[in-house]
């Protein structure tokens, strides 16, 4: 019960936030929600099913490019392009997963396989002139005042509520999944594949389901990215940096937990802003100092809170998972 009240309070805080936040804070919140959403999507694959993907930008990039290309070239509204983008990303996830899982590519090797696919696709997209290549794909910006959810054109506030809804949706979906058969199967696969198999779980199919679902959700995030920023570049869409951004929030927040990705995003993005502000306030303006401090903070977090912030925090505030039957771990 306490948990539910806390969640509702948090949600209403996010819903009401734009009232208090100026455009700057709003733009930070958009990034927070975007990272929380992507983290949740990645968490399905790694946190639940235990498959380490370090090339998750692949799916976001594919979703973004497909939907954006449909919009730019044929004026297909985002709502109709989205399923196509998701379908392509899911198919890519299926290929990566099928190859990796069928041929027993495990652990770090699987992680490298995901990087290889993402990087391969990055260079490939740099050589597709019809999608702009390295020159980038620019979406016509259009009106920024109205609210057009069909085409995803409109005011930043619309984008904020959209990404908030997506983050909440992903949270609820994951919560539901964890209470389902497939959720339990993922946990079993994550913990011990051999034992999972001995309990009748088709490990291959469970892992593939995780990759495909995660890829599809990530693709939707990519579509948001494309229509929010209105530019797509292979390096930004498929690059290693994007993949690292995706995985930081859930790991810092607490891998495999439902609240971890949200908390991680709530910590990391404002942390970056705070460091920028702090270094500037102290009069240090040297470029690179912010990222240096960011790296140090990250190091400190993994060193001292290796399970993530949320598992540590929930013990402190007494939200132990054992109190709640629905919650996974």
């Amino acid at each position, binding site marked *: 019960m306490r948990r539910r009240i806390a969640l509702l309070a948090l949600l209403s805080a996010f819903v009401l936030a734009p009232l208090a936040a100026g455009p700057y804070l709003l733009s930070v919140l958009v990034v927070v929600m975007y990272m929380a959403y992507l983290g949740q999507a990645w968490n399905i694959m790694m946190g639940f099913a235990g498959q380490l993907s370090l090339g998750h930008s692949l799916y976001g990039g594919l979703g973004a490019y497909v939907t954006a290309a449909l919009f730019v070239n044929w004026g297909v509204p985002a709502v109709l392009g989205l399923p196509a983008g998701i379908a392509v990303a899911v198919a890519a996830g299926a290929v990566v997963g099928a190859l990796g899982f069928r041929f027993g590519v495990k652990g770090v090797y699987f992680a490298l396989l995901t990087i290889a696919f993402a990087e391969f696709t990055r260079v490939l997209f740099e050589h597709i002139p019809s999608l702009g290549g390295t020159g980038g794909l620019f979406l016509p910006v259009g009106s920024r005042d109205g609210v057009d959810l069909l085409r995803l054109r409109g005011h930043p506030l619309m984008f904020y509520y959209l990404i908030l809804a997506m983050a909440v949706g992903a949270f609820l979906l994951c919560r539901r999944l964890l*209470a*389902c*058969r497939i959720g*339990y*199967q993922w*946990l*079993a696969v994550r*913990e*011990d594949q*051999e*034992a*999972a*198999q*001995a*309990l*009748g*779980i*088709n*490990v291959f199919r469970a892992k593939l389901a995780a990759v495909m679902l995660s890829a599809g959700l990530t693709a939707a995030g990519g579509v948001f990215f494309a229509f929010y920023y209105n530019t797509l570049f292979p390096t930004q869409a498929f690059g290693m940096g994007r993949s690292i951004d995706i995985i930081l929030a859930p790991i810092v927040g607490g891998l*495999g937990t439902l609240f971890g990705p949200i908390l991680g995003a709530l910590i990391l993005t404002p942390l970056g802003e705070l460091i920028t502000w702090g270094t500037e306030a102290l009069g240090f303006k040297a470029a690179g100092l912010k990222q240096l401090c960011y790296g140090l903070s990250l190091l400190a977090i993994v060193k001292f809170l290796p399970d993530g912030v949320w598992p540590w925090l929930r013990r402190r505030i007494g939200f132990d998972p*054992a109190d709640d039957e629905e919650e*996974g*771990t």
Partner: protein
Amino acid sequence: MTAPSPLLLVENLVKNFRGLRAVDGVSFQVNAGDIVALIGPNGAGKTTVFNMIAGSLQPDAGRIELAGRSLAGLRPDQVCRAGVGRTFQLVKPFGNISVEENVVIGALRWTGDVAEARRLAREVLDLLGLADKRRLPARSLTLPDRKCLEVARALATRPKLLLLDEVMAGLRPAETDRMVAIFQRLNRDSGLTIVLIEHVMRAVMALSHRVVVINSGKPVCEGGPAEVVRDPRVLECYLGEEAARC
């Protein structure tokens, strides 16, 4: 041939590991409702036989049938769904989730309804005396409890045939007796068929209807427990091992 087809038929099983013949022509049958013990010295190939039945290893030759249906080429999960539950000699608990959830996962083999799975899981945990630990993460259990959990998970899949790989090892005699009683009850009340690998002779004698002895991958003899322990060939294979160790 007698009329009722056996629940498990193992015939002329052969398995090589890098030229080493680990299992060489093992055959036995298990009828529905039987409790059969598979014994033999260390390295005799017992676990390899289990792994072949459970689908973890594919035999190089021979036949494995469950209720007349070949298990050849099936993956472990398919074998499980065909009605074979197993435990691992080296226990494999799902360490980071609760004991109850471990068992729920087993029960989800036959139901998609988590609430129903949870009900069965609690029953099984009650049966095995783990009820008070059901909320603990599985990694915090002691070894005997982990063995129990291993059994609980396998039982939750509602198997027709249960393969137990040294679940009594490391248990105190009183715990062994309790475990034996549980298996006897399951066998009596629900007709559960059990094949067990066991070194604890106290359990073998009390539990099994029949004993199959193998050594160096080859079948040695087969019979009732009392008759097998008196068989000089059995003694020899155990003593031989002792002699080799010195």
